[in-house]
């Protein structure tokens, strides 16, 4: 699939008090933005367990957008800072797993920022489109279809150089 026809699947986690309302505002104001994002409402970005992100990525999402209240404006005082710290550590772990950290994005959007929410979503969809499909699920499943013999990977050149016993 080339990147022009590829439509990324994005899972978006929104905070009940700000970014979910921002997306609501974007909708009622009939702003146009990329339809690729599937929103899941949490009570707070602090509810975001990194498990949710890993589950989304391993189950077919190409990117995950985490949204919450601006720093200092959390409905629960400081939980969005926890989301920020988890996000920064999670990105480091994803690098080690061979996944581009740009596939996970943190966006702050207040309830009044429908336009910002719409613009950030569109930007993120384009960024993920450039990265291409993640396809983790399909790549993992390939393991079962393949004969195990093809998995023992040795450079062909080494066969030519081999000294017979």
């Amino acid at each position: 699939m080339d990147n022009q026809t590829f439509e990324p699947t994005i899972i978006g986690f929104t905070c009940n008090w700000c970014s979910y309302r921002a997306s609501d505002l974007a909708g009622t104001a009939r702003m146009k933005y990329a339809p690729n994002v599937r929103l899941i409402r949490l009570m707070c970005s602090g509810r975001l367990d990194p498990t949710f992100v890993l589950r989304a990525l391993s189950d077919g999402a190409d990117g995950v957008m985490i949204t919450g209240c601006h720093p200092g404006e959390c409905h629960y005082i400081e939980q969005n800072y926890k989301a920020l710290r988890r996000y920064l550590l999670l990105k480091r772990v994803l690098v080690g797993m061979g996944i581009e950290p740009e596939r996970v994005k943190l966006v702050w959007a207040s309830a009044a920022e429908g336009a910002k929410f719409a613009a950030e979503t569109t930007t993120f969809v384009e960024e993920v489109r450039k990265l291409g499909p993640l396809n983790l699920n399909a790549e993992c499943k390939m393991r079962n279809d393949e004969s195990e013999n093809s998995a023992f990977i040795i450079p062909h050149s080494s066969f030519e150089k081999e000294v017979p016993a």
Partner: protein
Amino acid sequence: MTTKPKFAMYWAASCGGCEIAVLNTHEKILDVDANFDVVFWPVAMDAKYHDVEAMEDGSILLTLFNGGIRNDENEHIAKLLRQKSKILVAFGSCACEGCIPGLANLSPVGDIVHTAFNTLTTDNPNEIYPRTSYDVPEGELHIPTLSRVVRPLEQVVDVDYFMPGCPPESHQIAAVIDLVIKVVKGEAELPPKGSMIGVGDSTVCDECPRARNVKFIKEFKRIQDVAPVDPNLCLLEQGIPCNGPATCSGCGARCPQAGAQCIGCYGPAEGVMDYGARLITAFSSVIDANTPAEIDRILDGIPDPTGQVYRFNLAGSLLKANRNVWKVVSGK
């Protein structure tokens, strides 16, 4: 002809420590011999694969399977023992979640072979690599073929019980042996299928005697760089990445009591879907910083975040392996 129930134990991709832990039950091992007929245990007795193949399906009552599935031989025996066993236990961290051999899932298998046969520690000027089959005058020789990834037992066959630990603590093994003997005698019932056995019901922190106050740290440090380590204070509060918060209890918090951080060998605690994700949450909650730059500075104190949070659990995690492992096109 004996009428005792049959017992088997097998090692796949593992170090052999699980076998030693079983022998470490001391005189309890005599109970195993008194109550079971040991039919297959490569480390302890001579038996051939074709002996197992000749057994009736379901004729082995209890099989303790340790080790992950690294090659086609492991996979064949795992399927064979599943077929022949009534109760199959994933025994030890490797069989439950991949353990240290599972860290190989961070590298394509070609790189692993190359590292083993042609780097600093190996003098291999002619680049001789192992072949999976080779013709000799007497016929064709085969060695097992490595698979792309290490898989925990559960990803290959149906598993009845999980007994984590690297290795499982001997007193936990002894308790499980006692339980199975009682079940055989009709004095007890087996736990529900799929249970973790030989574990506690909480996290290592719950068993750890170190004092926990409000955790906030300005710096993560490796334990060897902390001098002196406070013997009574939570290690995480001293900035030492300790895996206790996500790790299943059952070991008695041995490492923290001995002055070392928990490395997480008992695997995810009950209800933890992804071990690494739970640790990310735990580590994030102690960081005393609110700006991205400062948080990043503190996180720099964990030099290998992926290895830190998935030390024992990589193969059993949601992502299972580095993505590049799947991408590599097989050579020919």
